[in-house]
């Protein structure tokens, strides 16, 4: 089967956090030994490209374009490390006869983790990666192609003076000549080298101006690459700096910011409905647009919701798992099939859920595990959305449970023999059966991969003590010297009527905002009528999820 390539676009700082984790876990999962008994089930060529530097060194880098603001890269040079060696400004040969004034910003030192990647041979210094992560490039293991990183020079990262937080500002930025031309050309070069290009995955920060930028880019893609699928993942960070206010003044400011984020989110959803093939909002926060919203908690996971490094890792593991569906070696399932199956009746918004780690006891079997399972298999990571259990189109992916963990061999099966599920011979079969019994009037599809998710460094250490080295649940606490290497994980994507409630609550919240009070939007070109139109469209979209129209 030919490789059908996908290009990934990342817009915004949080998206890049999630993206960095995602590329890291993929690269840590690479198998370099080609003649093993069980070669990788994943076709990495879907997301990766092979290249060659001018020195004829072979490179293998993600098909990726990412965008961030000036100053957000810290120690990572825009061109990356692979193709051009860094230039020493003091030894630089100039082609200018008079003097050259060097304006040097303070050099940003790499953290210990990055140094370790550069010189793996050097003796290791003890360090805590957790404390040294400030931006995503600090824990980036993957190495990028020079054209991957795009920096927006007009706006400074975390600037108080000129924040990049108004949706229409992002749309305007796309329209500037040099940005659009440059970016569009990079998309084109990436697509040109693909033989069977099938579509785009877009990760975007949905509640600041990056949403606007991404939406304008998406409009362009729809226009230029018709018939290609677009899988959009609007991301909502779990935490903002202004959440931890101390004074009343700061609390009010945070409230204002919240409302602006909500407006951006609504405008973004509105465009996603129109231009994407399918979109899945992701966040570890419960509501997604309120300071006061509760962060979600996950079994056997201790994470700090205020750390982007942590919360993005959870989202990245979900992302890496549910995208397996269309990048396995033995499948002909394409991104467009994926989009069509998940969006019946034009329900383009879809919810995602996760079970990390998929809690299987050490030495236990899936059959028993499912038999004793209480409640839903997975837990929602789509903000302000519950999954429900009936009338769903759903797609489950389980990885990290091997065929030998399915059931006991018949000679020693004992009580298992009495279970109806014992006749299932594959994981897919058994899970499908389980889902058929538990979800009413639903269509479920299951994919499974035997190898677990790689959670070695730089993945944060977020698992509790009951999670063993291979991710299974152990009876006693894990030896503190040992770290978790890989975990089984299950994700689900669900399209059902509950998502309508998410759209409705967003609509209600937006309806309460007096847009005229936010003059920034008016001055950036958003008119009141447009806003009302957007509200009306969200309301119409909501109706698609009403079950009385279908079945």
């Amino acid at each position, binding site marked *: 089967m030919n490789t059908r390539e996908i290009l990934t676009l990342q817009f915004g700082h949080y998206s890049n956090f999630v993206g960095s984790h995602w590329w890291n876990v993929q690269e840590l999962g690479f198998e370099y030994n080609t003649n093993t008994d069980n070669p990788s089930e994943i076709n990495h060529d879907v997301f990766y490209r092979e290249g060659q*530097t*001018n020195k*004829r060194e072979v490179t293998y880098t993600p098909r990726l374009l990412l965008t961030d603001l000036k100053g957000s*890269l*810290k*120690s*990572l*040079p*825009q*061109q990356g490390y692979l193709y*051009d060696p*860094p*230039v020493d*400004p003091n030894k*630089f040969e*100039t*082609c*200018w*006869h*008079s*003097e*050259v*004034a*060097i*304006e040097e*910003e*303070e*050099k*940003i030192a790499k953290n210990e983790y990055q140094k370790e990647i550069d010189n793996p041979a050097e003796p290791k210094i003890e360090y805590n990666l957790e404390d040294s992560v400030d931006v995503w490039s600090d824990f980036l293991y993957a190495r990028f192609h*020079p054209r991957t990183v795009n920096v927006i*020079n*007009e706006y*400074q990262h975390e600037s108080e*003076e000129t924040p990049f937080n108004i949706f229409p500002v992002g749309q305007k930025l796309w329209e500037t000549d040099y940005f659009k031309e440059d970016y569009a*050309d990079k998309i*084109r070069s990436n*697509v*040109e*080298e693909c*033989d*069977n290009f099938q579509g785009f995955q877009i990760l975007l920060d949905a509640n600041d101006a990056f949403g606007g930028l991404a939406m304008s880019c998406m409009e362009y893609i729809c226009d230029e690459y018709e*018939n290609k699928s677009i899988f959009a993942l609007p991301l909502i960070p779990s935490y903002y700096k202004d959440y931890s206010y101390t004074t009343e*003044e700061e609390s*009010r*400011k945070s*409230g*204002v910011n919240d*409302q602006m984020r909500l407006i951006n989110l609504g405008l973004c959803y509105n465009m996603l409905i129109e231009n994407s093939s399918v979109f899945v909002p992701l966040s570890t926060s419960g509501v997604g647009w309120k300071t006061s919203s509760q962060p979600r908690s996950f079994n056997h996971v201790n994470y700090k919701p205020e750390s982007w490094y942590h919360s993005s890792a959870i989202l990245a593991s979900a992302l890496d798992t549910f995208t397996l569906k269309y990048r396995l070696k033995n499948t*002909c*399932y*394409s991104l*467009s*099939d*994926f989009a*069509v*199956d998940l969006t019946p009746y034009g329900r383009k918004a879809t919810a995602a859920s996760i079970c990390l780690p998929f809690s299987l006891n050490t030495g236990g079997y899936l059959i028993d595990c499912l038999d004793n399972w209480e409640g839903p298999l997975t837990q929602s990571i789509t903000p302000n959305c519950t999954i429900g259990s009936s009338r769903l189109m759903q797609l489950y992916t389980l990885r990290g449970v091997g065929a030998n963990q399915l059931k006991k061999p018949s000679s020693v099966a004992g009580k298992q023999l009495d279970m109806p599920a014992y006749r299932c011979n594959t994981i897919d079969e058994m899970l499908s059966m389980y889902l058929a019994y538990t979800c009413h009037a639903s*269509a479920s*599809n299951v994919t499974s991969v035997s190898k677990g998710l790689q959670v070695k460094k730089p993945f944060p250490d977020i698992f509790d003590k009951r999670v063993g080295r291979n991710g299974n649940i152990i009876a006693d606490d894990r030896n503190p010297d040992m770290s978790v290497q890989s975990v089984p994980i299950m994700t689900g994507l669900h399209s059902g009527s509950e998502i309508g409630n998410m759209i409705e609550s967003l609509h209600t919240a937006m309806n309460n905002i007096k847009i005229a*009070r936010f*003059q920034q939007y008016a001055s950036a070109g958003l008119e009141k009528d447009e806003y009302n139109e957007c509200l009306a469209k969200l309301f119409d979209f909501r109706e698609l999820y009403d079950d009385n129209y279908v079945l």
Partner: protein
Amino acid sequence: MAAISLLNPKAEVARAAQALSVNISAAKGIQDVMKTNLGPRGTMKMLVSGAGDIKITKDGNVLLHEMQIQHPTASLIARASTAQDDMTGDGTTSTVLVIGELLKQADSYIADGLHPRLITEGFDKARAKTLEVLESIKIPIEINKEGLLDVATTSLRTKVHHNLADVLADVCVEAILAIRRDDKPVDLHMVELMEMQHKTATDTQLVKGLVMDHGARHPDMPKRLENAYILTCNVSMEYEKSEVNSGFFYKTAEEREKLVAAEREFIEQRVKKVIELKKKLCTGNGKNFVVINQKGIDPMSLDMLAKEGIMALRRAKRRNMERLALACGGIALNHFDDIQESQLGFAGLVYEHVLGENKYTFVEECKNPQSVTILMKGPNKHTLTQIKDAVRDGLRACNNAIEDKALIPGAGAFEITAYKALTAFKDTVKGKSRLGVAAYAEALLVIPKVLATNSGFDAQDTIVKLQEESRLSDVPVGLDLASGEPIIPKDNGIFDNYIVKKQIINSCSVIASNLLLVDEIMRAGMSSLKG
């Protein structure tokens, strides 16, 4: 108490004299940063980011974009300067210098108690007079190579090294002349700028045809063809799934393959049409066939084309479709229904050049190309960026000259002449606004002064010399940066664009007047929804 503070007690306010001094110091600050870069002898700036990214430039506009300007007044000036660049492509540093100097001059009068309003009135009168001077000294030109070369060289020498500037100026002028048709306005988009990280900057050259940054994606396709028909089209030649309601629950790989085969049939028909045409036109006459498609071409279609010896490129830039039609004739097709020879273009030579993982396709030896490519070369990324910025400005300078059909003597000659005219004019102005005229005249001198300083001469000495010379001479006098002595710029081939100067005069006067009339600066914003 400012009225706003009654309404919003948290607003920060700066008033009257204080407001003015805030504006003036901001203008001075940004002027100081840019000052050293003016003119061919100004210094280069190398900007090194914390991660080691390098940017080398001398271009005022590039610098302004790179600097994070936080001060509101400074960013206002920066925006005026960016607007200058958008309009004309040159004169950004001058804009910043002149605005700063106008404010500085005005400041000393205001300190003596003169009302800013009177100064701005003076500025306005002086501006009108300066424009008259500008009209009087403009030199009409013939649009030919010599005429344009001077202005391109002058503009480029302020941006890159002399040797390189001469190469680039030549390339720019040739490019403009190649695409210019009679008296129609020139569309600069029809000059493609292509970068190649290779060799040195002075290897930059003009290709009278088109260079594309991709090549044929099939190993058996020819790498070099002579006498080739060029088919440009926007027709998909790749299999795309058309059915909408798939449903993954019950599809086997076999069923699927069958479906694919049926769908492919449709695409194959398209490819066959191209092959048919190729066979009809190129059999036995030594001619060849190239397909350049804006849409995709999948491996199976590529294979069919390769078997026929056709070179095929996929996913060409949208703009290249237009350029190809202009460079080698023919029209870009949207379907193959009625495909004919007359719709094809023709090129004498099409070949591929491989550089690391990048492929380049050259379409050359076109008859009468109306679209050309400037192939920029350089050993590293920052050199290429620098050349690209310079080439853009060089093209704009030529284009401006064509549109104005006139040039202005450079090397500070215009400013000296205007100063002379304004000093005479001042005596005819009644009332205190004549002081504004005087301030304006002084301010213009900042350009020759800074030119002199940057070349290592004493500013006062030079200005005095120039003024004396100017009094005796009828033609405008400028500054020779090599010797520090007065010269006649016209004889030395130093010219500036008319529109650049005109724009500087207009925008600087307006911005400076606006800033002078500001008597209150406040920072107030909505901090809560109730407030």
